[in-house]
């Protein structure tokens, strides 16, 4: 039950895009059509689910001082957390890119081009930083949180891409065309998502 509530909450209530604006750059750049949005969304879910539990373990056993720390209870390495998290993410995306390119060329052609973009996607690093702040009890919770946030991001980008496809037929004032109206659309979608905010699970 705990897991389910965390899962639903991280998709809808703590949505990476609408509540925290994370991963906005690629969100806006790659949401022109549903097909590419789909690919990037999948890649984000995948990388989040793989790196977040990894960073959770790093955080618990190496960075935070306390009885779990492998260097002894008094070694506080938490100042290294940013650099370690981003290194894990960058190394992981690089690794995945190479593996996918070699063994799954079909998947690579649909997903691979987005992988380098993901290393600097704030949603991934943000997920790890929120994990650190939220202080999960075990790896399972962090994995569920990763899956939920990834799905939330996926949902948001596919929805926006669908809206933008339709929007290209409408008559928008010239200065607002393109990115301007996209911002306003995302804002309105965010207001719609706020309906989920009061839900207690």
């Amino acid at each position, binding site marked *: 039950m705990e897991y389910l509530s965390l899962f639903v909450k991280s998709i809808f209530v*703590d949505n990476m895009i609408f509540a925290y604006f994370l991963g906005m750059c690629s969100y806006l750049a790659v949401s022109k059509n549903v097909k590419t949005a789909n690919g990037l969304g999948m890649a984000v879910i995948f990388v989040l689910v793989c790196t977040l539990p990894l960073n959770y373990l790093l955080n618990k056993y190496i960075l935070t001082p306390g009885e779990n720390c492998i260097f002894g209870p008094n070694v506080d390495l938490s*100042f*290294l957390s940013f*650099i370690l998290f981003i290194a894990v993410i960058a190394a992981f995306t690089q690794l995945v890119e190479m593996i996918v390119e070699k063994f799954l060329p079909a998947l690579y052609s649909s997903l691979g081009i987005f992988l380098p973009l993901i290393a600097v996607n704030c949603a991934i690093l943000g997920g790890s930083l929120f994990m650190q*702040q*939220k*202080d999960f009890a075990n790896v399972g919770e962090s994995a569920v949180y990763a899956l939920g946030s990834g799905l939330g991001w996926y949902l948001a980008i596919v929805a926006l891409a669908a809206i933008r496809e339709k929007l290209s037929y409408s008559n928008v004032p010239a200065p607002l065309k393109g990115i301007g109206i996209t911002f306003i659309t995302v804002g309105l979608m965010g207001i719609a998502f706020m309906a989920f*905010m*009061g839900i*207690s699970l």
Partner: protein
Amino acid sequence: MNTNSNTYTVVYSAIIVIVVAAILAFAAMSLNDRQVANMKAETIGQILTAAKIPSGESNAEIIATYKDQIAEAYTVDLKGAKVNELPAEDATIYTTSDLKAQNYNIADGVSAELPVYVFKNGTKVVPIYGAGLWGPVWGYVAITPDGKIAGATFDHASETPGLGGKIKDDPSFAAQFDGKAFDFSDAAPFAIVKGGAPAGKANAIDAITGATMTSKGLDVAINNWVKAYAPVLAGASSDCCKGEGKCCGCCAEGGCQEGNCCMDSEETNTEE
């Protein structure tokens, strides 16, 4: 030089990692004392604000005021018995991360070490800690010797500024606590009521408009912690049994040091 050879890449990466780690370790170590002092002064400042003791802005002034005004500080277990002294000379306190650990202990209900700060004017300050909408919320409540709430301060890690953040930023929210009291005969000693507290109710205040989840979280935090402190706040641990037979949960579990009062209070409990 060939910057693309394998050896070069590996050596280069190694050097970068070592240099960066050295710079960061140096910065972290040289700034650590200041950071810890900042955190501590902030917490002490909140304790003093809750107790309505005016203190200065700077860290040194805050700590000096605390040392000057504190009568005793100690930790208690869930039965209200004293566990440890928190020496006033070096202004030892429980930091927010210590409170987090105790919050788990309270939830487990087995053992906990909860800090109590008693000031020279008799005011006792106790912390509360819990989950808000986005992250943890915590704070301090000061109780006068006659059981009234003297004041309260709250803080949060990541509530929405302007909505849930008002528990910290809007002085009129915390001011509502002044003069209220906890009612330990109630299932919930205190209530933060959405849509306005009923007039004349001594243990309820208004929730923040638009911040339902934060208000609820704070309500739960206050009740959990105040219940854990019941033996201390409803009366000192030794005379909670001597009182009007109103046992606060400590006696039944054999927490009382003196005499046979536990028997009496068990009877009172069964009668009720």
